[in-house]
């Protein structure tokens, strides 16, 4: 199982801070597709940065069961 986190505007658009996906192994690219299928209103899933296990990771990154994937919309801290 892979856990997927949403924050800020994406969390509000999804109506939830997280979803899970029962899969052994996939890629960040496939997770974007899965999220868009599940929450069609989450346009940001197409382009928002992503982090795997709290480190920024690109579309080709392999994601395995137990991993966490977070969508990171443009940050605005400071």
């Amino acid at each position: 199982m892979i856990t997927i986190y949403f924050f800020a505007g994406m969390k509000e658009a999804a109506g939830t801070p997280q979803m899970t996906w029962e899969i052994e192994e996939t890629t960040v690219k496939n997770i974007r597709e899965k999220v868009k299928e599940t929450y069609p209103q989450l346009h940001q899933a197409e382009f928002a940065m992503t982090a795997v296990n709290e480190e920024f990771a690109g579309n080709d990154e392999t994601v395995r069961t137990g991993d966490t994937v977070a969508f990171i919309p443009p940050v605005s801290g400071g």
Partner: protein
Amino acid sequence: MEQKRNYYITEKPLDPSPLIQQVIRPEAGAVNTFIGTVRELTEGKRTLSLTYEAYKSMAEKKLEQIGREIEAENKDSRVAIAHRIGKLDISDIAVVIAVSSPHRDASYKGSRYAIERIKEIVPIWKKEHWEDGSEWIGDQLEQTAYNEKGPEEGTS
């Protein structure tokens, strides 16, 4: 005690003093501190309050990474950074950065680097509340938001 750590996200009001104390040491003669507070007016629009949200565990790692980057650039620098989340009122402190170094140049440079870097890589988001609505800042719907965004004109 989160006040004993050099990099943390907290929901409590931020006090610069403990962070400053954590970087003061005999080898250092200079401490530069940057404090970001909630500004009432941004481009003429009146802010009522802000809400900050963080991916807390990753944000603390990224704050520490920024500190390590500064210490790698100048091995005699020491860094402490804290960011507040939750609801903040006007003039509340959102972020405190403290950088000590033997000489003042490196302390200014490190502190400036830290605030710029926070606005690039630390997963924290700000929602501005105005009289006529609210909006997550930076959370653009266009992909170009990443590439075209200029210097952040947020709280600081």
